[in-house]
């Protein structure tokens, strides 16, 4: 072993950023494989949500919307898909906060690796996890009689929007994880996901909400994705009455892109500032 070898770096910056991102993502996925109970816990949220909202509240909400419970579930499922994407923020935040605390982030910063990959790896792992979660939800939904009516193209487009939303929330979680004082704080803030996930067109149609809630609900990025995916799946929907609602498809792309465009550079700046 020679101590004099100069590090050989071949390939372009972008190639390396991609490889590094994958290596970091793989680390997070290995965590799930090594701790299957945690994976199970993560997957339980959407499963429980389908069971609880679909069946416990389903009939009542159906009555309120003046439709049978089965039709409410048809309306509900796309809402739950998006809600699951939002709940992922908790995991992301805690995992990033743990890496700050534990020093793994410092070690990565001392390596000649791509700085953005340190964080982008987490986002990629989240996206992969989102695909797994969505597959389970689709299967579960189908089991409960939910259906997409507009063919495979619509399903793929809808899933694409959901994954894009998750990627945006992943960057929100990464930024929060870098800002909070530690994983305990991240867990305490988790309750904040509820208004994000529910003051939206997810579980209750916005026109059943009081007026002062309906406006933020309509402008919640989740709502755009939910309305757009209901459209793409051909599921029961409540006709949109707001400008955002009418432009849901466009907004379902614009919202996540805007969120990433804001959170990614802020997270990178924060990562650099960790070294103050």
């Amino acid at each position, binding site marked *: 072993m020679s101590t004099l070898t100069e590090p050989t770096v071949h390939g372009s910056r972008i190639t390396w950023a991609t490889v590094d991102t994958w*290596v970091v993502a793989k680390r997070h996925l290995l965590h799930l494989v090594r701790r299957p109970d945690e994976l199970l816990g993560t997957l339980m949220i959407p499963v429980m949500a389908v069971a609880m909202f679909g069946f416990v509240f389903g009939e009542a909400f159906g009555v309120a919307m003046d439709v049978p419970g089965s039709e409410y579930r048809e309306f509900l499922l796309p809402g739950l898909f998006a809600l699951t994407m939002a709940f992922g923020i908790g995991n992301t935040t805690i995992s990033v906060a743990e890496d700050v605390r534990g020093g793994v982030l410092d070690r990565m910063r001392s390596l000649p690796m791509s700085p953005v990959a340190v964080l982008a790896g987490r986002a990629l792992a989240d996206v992969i996890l989102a695909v797994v979660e969505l597959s389970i939800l689709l299967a579960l939904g189908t089991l409960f009689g939910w259906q997409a009516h507009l063919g495979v193209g619509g399903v793929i487009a809808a899933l694409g929007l959901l994954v894009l939303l998750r990627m945006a929330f992943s960057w929100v979680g990464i930024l929060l994880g870098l800002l909070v004082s530690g994983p305990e704080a991240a867990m305490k803030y988790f309750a904040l996901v509820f208004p994000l996930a529910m003051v939206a067109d997810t579980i209750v149609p916005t026109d059943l909400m009081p007026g002062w809630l309906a406006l933020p609900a309509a402008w919640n990025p989740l709502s755009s994705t939910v309305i757009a995916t209901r459209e793409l799946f051909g599921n029961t929907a409540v006709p949109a009455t707001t400008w955002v609602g009418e432009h849901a498809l466009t907004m379902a792309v614009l919202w996540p892109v805007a969120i990433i465009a804001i959170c990614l550079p802020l997270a990178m700046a924060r990562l650099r500032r960790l070294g103050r």
Partner: protein
Amino acid sequence: MITDEPAIWTQGLRKSYPGRGAALDGIDLAVPAGTVHGLLGPNGAGKTTTVRILATLASFDSGQAWVAGRNVARDRAGVRARIGIAGQYAAVDGVLSGRQNLEMFARLHRMRAREARARADELLERFDLVEAASRPVRGYSGGMRRRLDLAVSLIRSPRVLFLDEPTTGLDPRSRIEVWDAVRELADSGTTVLLTTQYLEEADRLCSRITMVDRGRVVAEGTPAELKSSVGGRDLDEAFLLITEGA
């Protein structure tokens, strides 16, 4: 590589944290290549801050810093490619196995998958971790964890290695294991900057020692020089005398 140029060189290194006084108040260091240099000082002296600055993990307010011939402020990537760092708080992934840690960090050191695997094998062997290789690091003893941390910091055969209190919190046996590893590194020509609160440790491992207290250098020399400067007393007493006199 023994050249005239010091492997680590700083002049007037200053840093303060917002809302606090100066953590570093003008640190001068010159560490010849291929030597083990001790940064000795009590808790809060500024040892970790110094190491973090030199390892590009923290910024500094004024002064100059060069590591392995690279300017720390201007060429972070150049420094990062030539250093290794292992700390008091072993920054390895607790959920992954020892092997998975080594392979991951080797990949992030820009090694190809096969090269990374071979390097992991080599280091597991060298640090006596072969048996524990596939167990999660969480279950490792303190000494094993520290050895893994050391192994990770050596993946790319760094020119300069920073060891921040590598034996703090270890039992005597693990401490000796880490000492042996440091000696071996020194023999292979790696420059080591080792911080410690233990005078005995600095005496045993280091060819020169810089004593720091409250962000300032209070004494510098070989262990023998430092001892004789206070009349042949042992280093513990020397340290007390020097820091009190400062």
